[in-house]
């Protein structure tokens, strides 16, 4: 066992050495951390001595984050990918035990209940770069937070969610314009939804309940004999094949993956009678108070909130950043919030702790506990 662990470490050391040699021949990206000053340099220096920052998040973020972070800071990152539920379970247990191996997690609003026991690091106190602090760099002139105190849950970007997705080979885009259209008899048994008892599926269901009411939700999800999928990709696949030409609750990366691979008939259809809901998805960053690499974690937070960090996130997840200076061409229009529009913001502590609990109970009553 020890031999295996050592061998594993050798491989890590070898990879590190190769990376160092490669890095020595190049230079760190300049400009993004201008004006960081002495405090920033001090943290950066301390971070170099701590070793790789350990970040948990969606697997597809791993490569662009590790590469971008290395390029811009010279620091290494150990990225642990997985589904939010497993990562949250791990992170929660680590912080509750005080035996923390992971520094940071990119997940949803779930982390909000880790604030009260004092498990999270204050991020607002650790904004070190002027480019992050400057209100001009943020849409609406401010950074967005998932907690009331604007301190612990930093939301890098938010996207519009909740629209139905159509297979336009089967359903013409104009056939479904308002939510009531979804109740037409011809769509009975033709709609697939990401299970409302899970993540993005639950967010779509909550949006419908909040805007159209619980009776409408019952008609749509039960009377229309909606089929539930436990996997977002599975739902989009059924949609693309036409067996269920309408999908609800699926996320932009899955939709755009199909569209980019030739399935242009997979089309997100904004409704005329509601603007959709705003979600942070995997853009919410929290850092453990007892992070094993606290300085590296602070560097990561500042990098993530800076232009290159947000560009890496936005490009991979195909959702918009809350930074005003990040505009990624491949982010589709349907996920971009419109100026002046009033959205239901689900990643806010008040809504999450009060309304979401009620809606969860309603969902249990309708779909079964």
């Amino acid at each position, binding site marked *: 066992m020890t031999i295996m662990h050592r061998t594993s470490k050798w491989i890590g050391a070898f990879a590190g050495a190769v990376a160092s040699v490669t890095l020595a021949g190049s230079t760190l990206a300049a400009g993004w951390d201008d004006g960081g000053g002495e405090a920033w340099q001090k943290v950066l220096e301390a971070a170099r001595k701590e070793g790789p920052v350990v970040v948990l998040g969606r*697997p597809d973020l791993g490569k662009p984050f590790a590469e971008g972070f290395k390029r811009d800071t010279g620091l290494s990152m150990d990225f642990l990918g997985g589904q939010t539920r497993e990562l949250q*379970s791990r992170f929660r247990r680590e912080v509750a035990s005080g035996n923390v191996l992971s520094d940071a997690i990119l997940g949803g609003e779930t982390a909000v209940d880790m604030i009260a026991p004092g498990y999270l690091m204050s991020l607002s106190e650790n904004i070190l770069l002027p480019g992050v602090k400057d209100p001009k760099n943020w849409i609406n002139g401010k950074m967005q937070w998932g907690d009331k105190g604007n301190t612990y849950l930093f939301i890098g970007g938010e996207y519009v969610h909740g629209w139905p997705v159509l297979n336009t080979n089967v359903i013409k885009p104009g056939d479904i314009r308002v939510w009531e259209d979804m109740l037409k008899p011809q769509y009975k048994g033709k709609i697939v939804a990401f299970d409302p008892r899970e993540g993005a599926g639950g967010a779509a269901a909550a949006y419908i309940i909040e805007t159209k009411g619980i009776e409408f939700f019952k008609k749509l999800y039960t009377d229309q004999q909606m089929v539930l999928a436990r996997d977002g990709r599975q739902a989009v696949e059924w949609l693309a094949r036409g067996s269920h030409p309408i999908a609800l609750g699926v996320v932009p*990366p899955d939709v755009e993956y199909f569209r980019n691979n030739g399935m242009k008939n997979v089309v997100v259809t904004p409704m005329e009678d509601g603007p959709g809901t705003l979600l942070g998805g995997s853009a919410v960053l929290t850092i453990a108070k007892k992070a094993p690499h606290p300085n590296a974690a602070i560097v990561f937070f500042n990098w993530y909130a800076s232009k290159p960090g947000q560009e890496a996130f936005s490009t991979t997840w195909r959702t918009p950043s809350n930074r005003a200076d990040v505009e990624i061409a491949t982010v589709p229009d349907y996920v971009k919030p419109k100026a002046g529009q009033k959205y239901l913001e689900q990643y806010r502590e008040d809504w999450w702790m009060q309304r979401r609990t009620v809606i969860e109970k309603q969902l249990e009553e309708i779909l079964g506990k």
Partner: protein
Amino acid sequence: MNEAASSARVPGTSRTAEARFGWLSGLLLLVLIAFLTLAPVVYVVIESFDVSPLGAPFKFGLDGWRDIVGSQRTWNSIIYSFILSTRVPIAILVALGISWLLIRVDIPGRRFIELSLLFGFFLPGVPMMMGWVLLLDKNYGLLNVLVQKLPFVTEPLFSIYSIPGIMWVHLSLTTIPIMVILLAPAFRQLDAAYEEAAEMSGASTLTSLRRVTLPLLAPAILTAFIAGLIRSLETFEVEQLLGVPANIFVYATRIFEMLSREPPLFPQALALSTLFLAILFVLSTFYQIYLRRAGNRATITGKGQRIQSRKRAWAPLVSVVLIVYVLFSIFLPLGVLISGSLNKLFGFFFIDDPWTISHWREVMSDDRFMRAVFNSISLGVTVGLIGILAFALLSWVIVRSRLWSRDIVSFLVWLPWAIPGLVLGVTLLSLLLNVPGLSKLYGTLTPLILALLIKELPIGVQMIRTAIAQTSHELEEAAKMSGAGFLQTFRRVTLPLIAPTLVSVFLLVFASTVRDISTVVLIAAPGTRTLSLLMFDFASSGRFESAAVVGVIIAVIALGVTAIAFRLGHRNGI
């Protein structure tokens, strides 16, 4: 249990061994096994009553229990679990037939058939299931489309999202292959002279099977039945993807659902797991009672053993049937998996320019790939080798020794089966984080090795103890009479006698280790991720194509290991 009773129940108990193991040895063994098996169970039971919020001290409450008992969906899920577990007796019947044909009848191509079944068990579950979805989906399944081209078929014949669909995927990919893996060694260890004697006394082949073969194999069959039943109750990947759209929830998917909530419903999930403990308790007690009543059924004695297979006129026909079966049940979905890894979108053959090697390029250039290959192979080999040695020693203690604690140990080794993989992962993570000393191991490969050894402990020990019970104690006694010590006897006599089973256990443990996701997903640190976890990462990101690439690579490793094991077995006459 008093010593006299112990002696009466185990006629082959060695006095030399008895002298070596005293009261202290019994205690040490008990403490070690209890720590590995009982600690997670105790944790599950206690935590099922903890209703405190995150970070707060333990607060007793029955909320979790009240929720699961009062939920109709929970009861439905238990009913569905038992309906789906009927695949186990079906698989045992089929596997008995296949094992008998492979070992007792000289059928052409039998090595290919056996190798294929072993290979089938190694294959990664979720990508292979995706292959079946592509073949049997009611709306677009390729087999449904083909069948509907027949003049008399107007409706799709198959639906993968149904009880029969889920049963078929399990039977073809895991349940029948694993039953053959479990039962074939027992057949190999059964001296053909028993059956020949029956047939020479005028019994037909069927009568000989019914009156001689099956009773002698009963312990092995019972082990396979209980192992299969428990495993069938805890599987969830197939049910998760195929059952939920048809509103079919089983016990394990309910637990998974509870753990997926934000925040997770731990008390409810752990209460449901505790309920499962009760079922396991009943099954294991029944098994122990049966073994005691069955007494000594040694089929390998000092007189030698004949396992020669016979020529039968109908053998070629049966061979064709079996080859068609393995081609259809294993190689057809494997073919779909391989083609899926080369599709732009898995299974989308009708789009313009559907083929690409970009997913292969993506996986091969992924920094995590080579490390995952190394981790998977080294974990599989380490857990497999430590496993067979530790399980064999433990089995010997249970079957042959007179240690006072052996009956308790024999019960304890069942316990890891009572906890589904994901719950075991949560539990081990909590233990690692909270037990002083253990926390230093967190982030290394050691917790993964321990977790996988604990998970494989029940099947490994039950298989090997059955094999040891099949060998007569007179062979070990003869070695000791010739002056051999315990270790020498164990190494030179006991282990070679049960070698076919050891090879099977190694393969089983290796395959389970390489395939495992649920047990290790929470405790694997960034540097210790395996190929299965890499596959899971891709699948979690909706990249089924890259997951299929990793699946194919796992299949290639599986094929290599199976071939090596077969060659070694063949060389050693196993």
